[in-house]
């Protein structure tokens, strides 16, 4: 009976950390992707998007969304592991292995299942249907289509086009127009002229969020497994996961959990931004020097591993988790 109870606690508090990591990654990924998929409606109204549009968004932003989801899950799992009972070392080791496998296979899988828009331009610009009966605007051009179908011919009604750049008498009337939802262009007839409605405006994203998204995009751009066993990609993924794994050190830094949390998040942000800074600004300078050129390109990926190592050593040298837990009254 006692053995069964010990086993149950082991499963609940040690192995569940891995399950928790899986679940949290999935929930965060779905949440982030939902926002990414819905974000175009911030610019213009839309009907429920098509399946092709979902796929396009996943192929475009799935990588960085998945990476962000995994990292969030990792931080959350760390805080859980150090607070709850269980075999800490085993939990952390399992989480490290699981995070590595999930991230690598996830990035590889996304690359295989949803080829990026740069590889298949046909995906590009999959957009929303036009709003019927409303005047549409794209830059200096205004378009009104009397009757629209979601794709294909725009019915028998006229199409009115106003091009501000033309000078006097800017309104033109066409017998009909064909709207292409993918490219968001209207092909007018007679004449065959095409008008693009692809850019109805720019979504405002706060500079902080934009900065962070740019960090994630950069990291995603250097994390692209080309094959199932792509050694440089394996090393890159391991470097980042190891950094994530080492976050247990700031997670137990003090007896003030709020401080631990904001310090951990700040460390993550600084390391991500540091990678982008190294990759975009420092490496291009260093490769000009012959002695550094071969090493320099690995700097952005070595940076999180280095920071992870520092944190890991600091964690080993610092207060043991058990003692910290006792001070925190978690036991």
């Amino acid at each position, binding site marked *: 009976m006692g053995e069964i109870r010990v086993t149950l606690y082991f499963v609940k508090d040690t192995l569940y950390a891995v399950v928790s990591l899986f679940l949290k990654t999935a929930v965060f990924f779905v*949440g982030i992707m*939902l*926002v990414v998929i*819905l*974000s175009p*409606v*911030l610019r*213009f*109204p*839309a*009907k*429920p998007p098509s399946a092709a549009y979902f796929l396009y968004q996943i192929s475009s932003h799935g990588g960085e969304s998945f990476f962000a989801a995994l990292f969030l899950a990792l931080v959350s799992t760390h805080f859980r592991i150090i607070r709850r009972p269980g075999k800490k070392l085993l939990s952390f080791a399992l989480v490290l292995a699981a995070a590595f496998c999930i991230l690598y296979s996830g990035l590889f899988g996304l690359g295989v299942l949803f080829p990026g828009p740069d590889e298949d331009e046909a995906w590009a610009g999959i957009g929303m249907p036009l*709003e019927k*009966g*409303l*005047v549409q*605007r794209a830059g*200096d051009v*205004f378009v*009104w289509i*009397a009757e629209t179908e979601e794709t294909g011919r725009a019915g028998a*009604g*006229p199409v*009115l086009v*106003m091009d*501000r750049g033309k000078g*006097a*008498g*800017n*309104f033109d*009337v*066409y*017998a009909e127009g064909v709207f292409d939802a993918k490219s968001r262009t209207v092909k007018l007839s007679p004449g065959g002229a095409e008008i693009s409605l692809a850019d109805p*405006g720019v979504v*405002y*994203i*706060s500079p*902080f*969020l934009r900065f*962070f998204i740019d960090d994630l995009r950069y990291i995603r751009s250097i994390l692209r497994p080309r094959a199932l066993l792509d050694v440089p990609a394996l090393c890159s993924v391991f470097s980042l996961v190891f950094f994530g794994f080492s976050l247990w050190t700031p997670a137990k830094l*003090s*007896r*003030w*959990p*709020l*401080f*631990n*949390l*904001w*310090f951990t*998040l*700040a460390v993550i*942000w600084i390391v991500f931004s540091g990678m982008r800074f190294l990759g975009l600004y420092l490496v291009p300078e260093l490769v000009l020097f012959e002695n550094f050129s071969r090493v320099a390109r690995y700097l952005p990926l070595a940076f999180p591993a280095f920071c992870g190592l520092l944190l890991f050593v600091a964690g080993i040298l610092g207060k043991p988790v058990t003692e910290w837990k006792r*001070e*925190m*009254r978690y036991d």
Partner: protein
Amino acid sequence: MTKAGRGIILTLIIVYVLTVIILLGWSFFTVPAIRIGALKTNWIIGNTLENLARALIPVHLSAVLFSFSLFFPFEGAGARGRGFFERLRFMGLTFLILTLLYAFLLEAGLPPALKMKEEAVTKIRQADELRIKAKDATARGQLKEARRYLQYALALFPEDEELRYELDTADRAAQIAGQARRAEAPAAENSALLLNMSFDDFLERARNAFDREDYISAEYYAAFALRMNLNHPVPKRIIAQARTKLAESRPSQEVRADMDFFRRKQAGVDILTGGGIIEAYRYFQDLIEERPEDPDVKRYLRLAHAELQKASFLLSEIPLTALGSAGTTEEYISAEGIVFINKSSGADREFLYIRRVIQTDAAYYVLDIEGIALAMDGKVLYHFGAPYGKFIDGTLLMHCVGDAANEDYAPEYYAGNPGDAADRLSVTADPEQLFHIISGGRGYRDVSLWDLVQTAEAASLLGVSSHPVYMAFFSRVFLLFSFFVLSFFAAAWGLRFRSRYAASPPVVYFFFLPLLPFIMILVFHVYQYGLYALQGFLLSALGFFASAAVFCAVQGLFLFFALLVFAKQMRQ
């Protein structure tokens, strides 16, 4: 209030004050190249309030997290006990008051602050434009025009010494030119022709002038009297006698000029009474250029102007810098570019394009109008263009009169013609709402919540997407709800992450405190962006009222969940 409560309130106040000081400092060091002190202050205050409105929620949440993790007493307070409800009441009241203050900042403080900031930038741009125009006018020898530009620029920046010097220089040049002109054409004698004078009044004046041997005025007034009664012999006699006397007296050059001027005034009145309103207006404008102090000319010019405004408007009413040529020096704001459906009658549609709408205190003006009416089969019923327009009582008046003889701007019909009312158009849109729709690029931040709802409804009627307007509405309401609801979340999570130190945490940790607001800014913006996207989708799928109901329900759920988390932490 308990000691913990005082600690929390004090922390919040200190954080707010520090935030304002930091944002003031930030604005002070990032102020663009604004030359003039008064506007620099406006810009700094406007920018500070704008940034405060933007940053206040994350900063406030940081302060709540921080203070609840340090000060909030949790010993002996169970979720079901009195302590829980007392603390809940304290939190609820505090957060509600702070939310109301935030609402006041957004709705009452932010719009004038944004206006101050925009005005500062706009005025500087306008002054620079005016200076360039003044230089250009001086180079062309148009000293009067140059003075006008410089006077306007100086009205915008009264302390600008450089502008004052340029105006003085232009003044001196204009004086020299004026002296030369006066030497050629001597000043006129004042006369006192009054409008609405009777036959007897004119006759009386003519007699008096004749008696004091002012034969020019005698002839002038007698001519008016004669026009009122063609059969009366006295005015005829006075005119004849005055002409005889003038012929005998060999008038000086000055008197001859006066005579000529009087005759021209008469001619102007003839044009005016003959229905040539625009011609009369221009005629009197020429006369007033010649003799600016002549009260008759002033009066007739006013009369001509009043008549003219019944059927048209003056180009000079439009603000100077908006127009790019002579115009009023009134302050204005403008918005650019819209096509909307002005009328729908059965299957017919009338579309209107407006390149620019100018809002002054007096009226709304538009530049570059183009209209087209279509039948459902694509047949063009009429199509016109007009350079200028003015909104008057639900109509767009498109007949504009400039100062020069050839400046008469009326709509040009490329196809069809509606006939009599060709120069005016009934407009369904309220110009204020139209202005709001066009200026939506600024995020509708200077439009009140109520106006936003009305503007959205107006946009739908005009065949323009109301989606951005409703989104602006939700984003504003969202901020208020977020302030209140997330405060409870922050309090609950602050409690969850409370300090386990017996006393205060080590001082070194507080050095990292400035990182907390930045983390919260990122977290809040992720939350904000996510909910905006969801709200945008709901708005598209369900419409305004249903999505508003979902919005309220979601916020209510969040609040409920925050209270649950809080209660759980209290139990622990």
